[in-house]
């Protein structure tokens, strides 16, 4: 059910169009502050990195297809393995789910016209892009990190890794962290302040709860990583002694700081996927989510308890038992919020009348894979078993079921689900379903046998293995599976690319969707909503009388806000309309800022301290210029 634009609204719409229009062409993309265009930038950039990470994965699997294989040198394998992890986590999943999906959908779902800090939003993107190029610049220059994505000291210290690859890793992740932190803060403020009047906390879509949880997790998790990386670089570049045992340093300190960040990070990776699932399921089963408050709670809770489980990555380092027990207890109970969501999804599907179209297929696949990944995850809270199986392929199997199965599958489902909204065209259904089945098969072929070789004692991260270990057969299957998986993903890509141009045109709401984004045109106009929507439940799009009220308001010129880049600001909890904000519009400074910061990091890695200082000053000057033009002068 779409809003038919009443004739008398014509002039108002034109005004909005004129006010929100951005510059055409490349300059438009460089200076844009439109959350939807920024999301598109995030989408294509993170897909490019996804391709890179995928190639690294295929290299790894091809090297391991037979014992004593010589395709990659030991160092080549270590580089591929490290960059695969870094790329997929920091340069693909997070920018894809938060940057692309979050940016495009959160403002739409809450009925806002943009993010709370549009220019900061653009800056997050440009800084993310720059950090990715920085890390891969190191790779291109022949300095790829080789110490694995969790980069344990002392292996990563100057003594054992003299090459500057580790510096590219550490500085690149600090760089990347700036972007993620800015994005996270932006999401929280957007969700708190820019919800459509009437959307009190209890009427907020679960998708937004997921992004709220993720953002808070990032805000509190990233500093621990930054702290660890600063210490590492101080050791490597300035000769500090944080991790040098002989000088009173400690190597477990790194592991603690890294995993204080690293475990919440896991939930940062999968929570947006949960959000996507909770958006797709109601639409395709034509029913509201079961146990809404519990699911909302579970999403927040996972992120919170996630801060109390980090040491289960360290059960083999010889912590004292009383210490480990704190983490074991939390690691067990954190299963329950996931259980709540899982059974809420399943019950919703059972009680509804599901249409098993491509998006729902991906979500059902996700549910199956997430159950496997979740169950294998529980076994790590059994300390003795964890101590037996940690650092084996059993772990690799587990977290790929979680990260690929539980995070990437919903992302792919989401791509299909919102494709008509973003492009105004429909993808090819039969190809969509086929690509799901191929990917699902490939996923299980690749990762299921890893459980078994893990139990058969194959440690992870070894560049080769002897023939007489009884591992060969499983590795062959895994490597073949990897190529099947790649084929499935290619099918997805081809389907979506072709449909961009050839797909049948669709209206605003091809799915009879549940949330607000389906009420505006596909693709949505720069200002998202001609009239600020009325909201009385978390499934706003299914409240017909509210949508009809919107049409009347539009006709009467009520709640249209066409005097400038305007959007309503509300009270954080109950969403009572408080004021009308004048939003900043397109600005050239965000990309310039990213350039200046890149200069700082580049100079630091070259140890050109003065030059680095100059770039730093430049960055502050840019920030000054950035604030030279205040919104209300627009």
């Amino acid at each position, binding site marked *: 059910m779409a809003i038919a634009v009443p004739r008398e609204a014509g002039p108002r719409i034109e005004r909005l169009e004129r006010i929100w229009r951005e510059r055409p062409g490349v300059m438009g993309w460089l200076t844009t502050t439109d959350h939807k265009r920024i999301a598109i930038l995030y989408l294509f950039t993170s897909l490019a990195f996804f391709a890179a990470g995928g190639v690294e994965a295929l290299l790894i699997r091809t090297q391991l297809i037979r014992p004593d294989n010589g395709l990659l040198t030991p160092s080549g394998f270590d580089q591929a393995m490290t960059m695969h992890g870094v790329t997929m986590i920091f340069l693909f999943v997070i920018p894809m789910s938060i940057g692309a999906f979050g940016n495009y959908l959160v403002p739409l779902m809450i009925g806002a016209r943009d993010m709370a800090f549009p220019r900061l939003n653009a800056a997050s993107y440009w800084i993310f892009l720059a950090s990715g190029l920085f890390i891969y610049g190191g790779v291109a220059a022949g300095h790829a990190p080789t110490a694995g994505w969790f980069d344990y000291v002392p292996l990563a210290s100057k003594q054992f890794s003299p090459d500057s690859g580790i510096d590219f890793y550490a500085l690149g992740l600090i760089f990347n962290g700036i972007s993620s932190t800015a994005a996270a803060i932006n999401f929280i403020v957007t969700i708190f*302040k820019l919800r459509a009047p009437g959307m009190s906390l209890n009427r907020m879509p679960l998708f937004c709860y997921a992004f709220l949880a993720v953002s808070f997790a990032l805000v509190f998790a990233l500093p621990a990583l930054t702290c660890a990386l*600063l210490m590492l670089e101080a050791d490597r570049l300035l000769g*500090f002694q944080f991790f*040098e045992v002989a*000088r009173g340093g*400690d190597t477990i300190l790194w592991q603690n700081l890294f995993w204080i960040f690293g475990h919440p990070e896991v939930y940062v990776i999968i929570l947006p996927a949960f959000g996507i699932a909770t958006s797709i399921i109601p639409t395709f089963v034509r029913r509201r989510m079961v146990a809404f408050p519990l699911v909302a709670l579970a999403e927040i809770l996972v992120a919170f308890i996630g801060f109390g489980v980090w040491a289960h990555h360290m059960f083999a380092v010889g912590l004292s038992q009383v210490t480990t027990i704190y983490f074991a207890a939390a690691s067990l109970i954190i299963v329950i919020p996931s259980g709540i969501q899982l059974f809420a999804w399943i019950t919703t599907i059972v009680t509804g009348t599901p249409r098993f179209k491509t998006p729902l297929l991906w979500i059902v696949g996700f549910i199956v894979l997430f159950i496997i990944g979740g169950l294998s995850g529980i076994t790590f809270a059994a300390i003795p078993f964890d101590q037996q199986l940690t650092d084996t392929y059993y772990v690799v199997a587990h977290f790929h079921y979680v990260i690929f199965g539980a995070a990437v599958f919903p992302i792919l489902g989401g791509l299909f689900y919102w494709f008509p909204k973003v492009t105004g065209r429909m993808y090819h259904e039969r190809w969509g379903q086929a690509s799901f089945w191929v990917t699902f098969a490939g996923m299980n072929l690749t990762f299921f046998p890893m459980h078994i070789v893990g139990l058969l004692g194959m440690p992870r991260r070894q560049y080769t293995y002897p023939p007489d270990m009884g591992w060969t057969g499983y590795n062959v299957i895994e490597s073949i599976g990897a190529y099947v998986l790649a084929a499935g993903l290619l099918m997805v890509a081809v389907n979506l690319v072709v449909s961009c141009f050839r797909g049948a045109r669709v209206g605003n709401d091809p799915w009879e969707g549940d949330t607000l984004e389906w009420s505006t045109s596909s693709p949505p106009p720069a200002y998202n909503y001609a009239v600020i929507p009325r909201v009385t439940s978390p499934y706003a799009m299914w409240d017909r009388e509210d949508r009809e009220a919107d049409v009347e308001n539009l006709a009467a010129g009520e709640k249209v806000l066409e005097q400038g880049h305007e959007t309503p600001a509300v009270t*954080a909890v109950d969403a009572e309309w408080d004021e009308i*904000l004048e939003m900043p519009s397109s600005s050239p400074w965000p990309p310039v800022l990213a350039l200046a910061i890149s200069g700082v990091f580049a100079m630091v890695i070259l140890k050109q301290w003065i030059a680095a200082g100059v770039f730093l000053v430049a960055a502050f000057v840019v920030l000054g210029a950035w604030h030279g033009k205040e919104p*209300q002068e627009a």
Partner: protein
Amino acid sequence: MSDVTRSMEAGAAGVAARVERRRRSMPSGWWGMALLIATEFTLFASLIASYFYLRFQASTWPPAGIEPPSITLPAVFTGILVASCAPVYGAVRMARAGRRPAAWGLLAVALLVQGAYLGLQLWLFVDDLNTFSPADTAYGSIYFALLGIHHVHVAVGLLLDLWLLGVLAFALTNYRLIALRVIAMYWYFVASVAVLVLLTQLYPSL
């Protein structure tokens, strides 16, 4: 909806103050700064936790050959920084009342005090560097890292002050009023963390 104000109208001191008074909830900028503070605070928490983590790996702290830090000067300096929160607070009060010149003056005073604080601290920092090095022991590493990172936060605050003084010299808008409020918050944060950092730094002598 009639009681809803348009922030874009607040282009002058009087209106800005009125908009500010009619606002029922914290503005976006406030939330943004609150969250930035949250993440920065977590950074300091990590550093301070690391300090004590390292301390509990060592049997003697500070290690042999390094005498425990002297209390007086750092304590006095930190007192100065905490005191500088008073003019900052005053500046916010004045601005919310629409009294731009008074706000500007108080902020300038705050800037001078904070600048003096940073100068003195840096002098002390260099003095410490001459007595023991961050490259010799983990104690030195965490000691200088903790102080250094806090000094950086003070320096950033000074830059914010300078920008604010620059724009407030011409007009007080809604945008600048919120900026003043959040930069004040930033200073309260820097001052309170300064106390925690001080206690950590002086821990061996307490």
